[in-house]
C-alpha cells in the first residue's frame, strides 16, 4: 500500500502534464490575470442566476423536465467539479509525500505514510470547513433526489456569487476589524433576549393565549428588542408589559450602538477602501504612472499635459498635500511610496509602470527609486535631483532618467540670453506648440514604410520637416534621399500635429495589405 502510493506520488511528481494541469486549474480559479478566468467566472455566475430563476418560476408554474434536469444535474455537476477542483488545488499531497520521503531518507528514519496523510488531509478538511467551501458544498446538494426537500438549498448558490463581489469581502473585512465590539454587543443581546424570553414564558404561558412554548417567548423578545414589533404576540400582564418596556429601551440603545460601530468602522476605512479601488483600477490598465509628491513640480507637470494622462495616481505622505491634490481634481492617495508594502500592491509585472519621483528631498527620491527597482527592474523611474552631487547615487540606484530642475532652468536662461531668437524656436519645440511639434515615427516590423526610400515618403507635401533617422542607437542626420527605411527605425519629423497624424495614418499598416 505504502509503496503503491509512494510510486504514484513519484509518478505525479515527475509528470509535467499533471503539474501543468494543476497549475492551469489553480490559475483558472484564482489568478485574476488568467485569460480564461473571466469566462469561467461568467459561466458560474450564469449557472447560479439561471438556477435561482428556475427556482422562483417553479413556485407557481410547472417546469419542463429538461429544465429541471438542467437545474438538478448539469448545474450541480459543474458545481461539483468546481468544488473538487478547489479541493484538489488547495494543497499538494503527492509533493508532501515526496518531501517527507526524501527527508526521512536523508535522516535515515522510517518513512511514515500516516503522518504525511494526516497533515495533508487535515489541511483539506480545514479548507472544507471554511465558509466558502461549505457554501460550495451546499450548492451541490439539491442534485440528490431524496433530498428534494432541500430544494431551498439552491439559494446557497447565490452565496457562491459572493466570491465574485469584492465589496462583500470588504464589508466582511470591515466587520472583522470590529469583531470585539460586535461580539460584546451580540452576547449582551443574547443575554437580554434569553432572560426576557424565559421571563415572559414563565410569567404569561398560562395567561397569554399566544404564548405556548419557550420558543414563542424568545421569538417575542427578538421581535420586540429589534423594534420590529409584529404584534402577533403581546404581553397581557403588567409585569410582562414592564419587561417589554425594558427590552424596548435596551433595544433602541443596542441598535443605535451597533449602527454607530459599523458606521465608524466604515468611515475609518473609507479612505483605505477608496485607495484600494484606485489601485485595482490601475492594475487593470496596461500602463500607469505613479507620481510621488504633490509640490510645484507635480503641479507644473499636470499643466504640461497636452492630452490627459489615462492612468496615474499621486502619492504623498503629507495628508494636507493629498487633500490639495484632490481639491485640484487629481487622483491622489495618502501613501508612502518609499514603503515596500505600498508599491508591491501594484502589478509591476503585467503593467508598464512608470514612477516619477518629484518630491523636494533627494533622500526621499533615492529611497523611492531603490524601492521601485527592488520590486521590479521593469518599473521605469524618472527622478528629480536637487543636489548635482547626488546624481551618481541616483544612477547607482537604477533611475532610468534623472533631472535637475536647476540645471534645466539654468540652460534655458542661458539659451535665452545667448540666442534669443533660437530660444523662441526651441521653447516652441520643447513645449510642443502645434506648429513646431517634433515627433518620432516608430517603424514596426510589418510597417508599410519598410523598404521604401526617403524620397518616396514625400515629407514636404505633408508640410513636414524630416530631420533624420535614429537607427540602432545612432542618429543619422539628414540622410540622402535614396536611404532605405529599415525595420525598427525611428524617424524624427517636425511639423504640425495634424500633418504628423495624417502622415502616420497614411503610412501605417501592414506591408501586405498595402497596394
Amino acid at each position: 500500500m505504502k509503496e503503491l502510493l509512494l510510486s504514484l506520488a513519484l509518478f505525479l511528481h515527475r509528470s509535467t502534464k499533471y503539474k501543468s494541469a494543476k497549475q492551469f486549474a489553480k490559475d483558472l480559479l484564482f489568478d485574476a490575470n488568467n485569460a480564461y478566468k473571466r469566462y469561467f467566472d461568467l459561466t458560474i455566475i450564469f449557472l447560479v442566476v439561471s438556477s435561482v430563476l428556475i427556482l422562483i418560476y417553479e413556485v407557481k408554474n410547472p417546469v419542463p423536465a429538461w429544465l429541471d434536469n438542467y437545474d438538478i444535474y448539469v448545474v450541480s455537476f459543474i458545481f461539483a467539479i468546481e468544488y473538487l477542483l478547489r479541493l484538489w488545488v488547495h494543497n499538494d499531497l503527492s509533493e508532501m509525500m515526496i518531501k517527507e520521503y526524501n527527508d526521512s531518507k536523508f535522516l535515515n528514519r522510517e518513512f511514515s505514510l500516516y503522518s504525511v496523510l494526516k497533515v495533508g488531509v487535515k489541511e483539506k478538511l480545514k479548507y472544507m470547513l471554511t465558509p466558502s467551501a461549505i457554501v460550495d458544498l451546499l450548492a451541490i446538494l439539491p442534485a440528490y433526489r431524496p433530498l428534494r426537500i432541500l430544494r431551498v438549498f439552491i439559494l446557497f448558490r447565490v452565496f457562491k456569487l459572493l466570491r465574485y463581489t469584492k465589496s462583500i469581502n470588504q464589508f466582511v473585512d470591515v466587520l472583522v476589524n470590529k469583531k470585539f465590539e460586535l461580539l460584546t454587543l451580540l452576547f449582551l443581546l443574547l443575554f437580554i433576549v434569553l432572560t426576557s424570553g424565559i421571563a415572559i414564558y414563565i410569567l404569561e404561558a398560562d395567561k397569554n393565549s399566544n404564548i405556548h412554548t419557550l420558543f414563542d417567548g424568545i421569538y417575542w423578545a427578538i421581535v420586540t428588542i429589534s423594534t420590529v414589533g409584529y404584534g402577533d404576540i403581546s404581553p397581557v400582564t403588567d409585569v410582562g408589559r414592564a419587561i417589554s418596556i425594558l427590552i424596548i429601551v435596551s433595544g433602541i440603545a443596542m441598535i443605535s450602538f451597533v449602527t454607530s460601530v459599523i458606521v465608524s468602522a466604515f468611515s475609518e476605512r473609507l479612505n483605505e477602501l477608496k485607495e484600494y479601488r484606485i489601485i485595482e483600477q490601475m492594475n487593470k490598465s496596461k500602463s500607469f504612472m505613479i507620481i510621488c509628491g504633490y509640490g510645484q513640480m507635480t503641479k507644473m507637470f499636470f499643466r504640461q499635459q497636452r492630452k490627459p494622462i489615462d492612468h496615474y495616481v499621486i502619492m504623498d505622505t503629507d495628508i494636507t498635500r493629498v487633500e490639495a491634490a484632490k481639491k485640484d481634481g487629481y487622483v491622489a492617495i495618502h501613501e508612502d511610496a518609499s514603503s515596500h508594502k505600498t508599491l508591491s500592491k501594484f502589478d509591476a509585472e503585467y503593467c508598464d509602470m512608470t514612477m516619477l519621483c518629484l518630491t523636494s528631498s533627494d533622500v526621499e527620491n533615492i529611497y523611492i527609486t531603490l524601492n521601485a527597482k527592488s520590486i521590479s527592474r521593469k518599473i521605469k523611474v524618472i527622478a528629480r535631483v536637487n543636489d548635482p552631487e547626488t546624481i551618481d547615487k541616483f544612477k547607482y540606484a537604477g533611475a532610468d532618467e534623472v533631472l535637475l530642475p536647476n540645471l534645466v532652468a539654468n540652460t534655458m536662461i542661458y539659451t535665452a540670453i545667448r540666442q534669443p531668437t533660437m530660444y523662441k524656436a526651441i521653447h516652441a519645440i520643447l513645449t510642443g506648440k502645434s506648429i513646431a511639434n517634433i515627433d518620432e515615427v516608430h517603424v514596426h516590423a510589418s510597417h508599410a514604410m519598410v523598404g521604401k526610400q526617403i524620397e518616396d515618403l514625400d515629407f514636404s507635401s505633408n508640410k513636414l520637416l524630416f530631420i533624420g533617422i535614429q537607427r540602432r542607437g545612432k542618429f543619422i542626420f539628414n540622410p540622402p534621399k535614396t536611404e532605405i527605411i529599415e525595420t525598427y527605425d525611428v524617424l524624427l519629423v517636425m511639423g504640425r500635429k495634424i500633418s504628423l497624424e495624417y502622415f502616420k495614418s497614411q503610412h501605417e499598416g501592414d506591408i501586405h495589405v498595402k497596394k
Partner: protein
Amino acid sequence: MSKNKIAIFGYGNHGKFIAKGLALDGFDITIVESNKVFYKDAKSNGFENVFFADVTKDSELKKMNLESFAQLVCVMDDEHLNVFLTLSLRSLFQDSYILSISDSLNVTKKLQMAGANKVIDLYEVSANKIYNLLDRPIATKLLEEFVHNKEGITFKEMLIPSNSFLDGKMEEDVDFSSYGVLLVGMIDEELGHAFVFVTAGISHKLDSGDTIVCLGEKDKLDAFEALIAKKEI
C-alpha cells in the same frame, strides 16, 4: 548699448552656472550680489566686474549705469528679493530687457506684473521635460543634444546678407538639405519680426535682412553661412 553686455543679479544656484557659460561664449558679464559669500565666490571665480550692492536701494542700482546693458538677468536665490529687484529695475529703466527666474506659478505672475520681459519658471521647464521624456523619449533626447551641442548637430541663426543668392527666392525653391542643413524657421521682417516655422505651411519669400534658423552639423552650418553671402553659386 552693446548686445554682449549682460548684468546678472545674483551669483547663487543659477547665476553661477549662467555667468560661467556666458563668459565662455565671450559675453561681457557684470555680476551684482548682495550676499558677501556669493560676492567673494564670484570674485574668486575670476569675474572682474563684480559689484557688492544692496539691491533694494535704488540709489545703488542707479550708480551702476544699467541702461547700457542689453539684458538684466534677475536670478537671486531669494524669490522675494528677486521680485522686488525686478520691480525696481523696471521702474528705474523703462527700456531695459529684464529676464527673471521664478519657482512657482504665483511668483511668475508677480514677476510679470513687476515688469519682467521674460520669466522662466524653474519647475515648468523641468516638468515639461519629464512630460516630453514620457511622450517622445527619442525626439526629446536628440533635441536636447541639438540645443546644448556646440559641436556636432546644432541650431544656428544666420542673417541673410544683401546680395545673397537666397534674396528674393521662395523658401520651397531652395533645397537646403543638399547643403547638409535643414531650414527650421525664420524671422520674417515683413511679418513684423515674428518667428515662423517652415512647417507652418505658409510660403515665404527669403529677403536680405531676414534671420533664418537652420539645423545641421556645425561645419556644414558654418560653410552654409559663408555660402549665402555669395550672389551666385
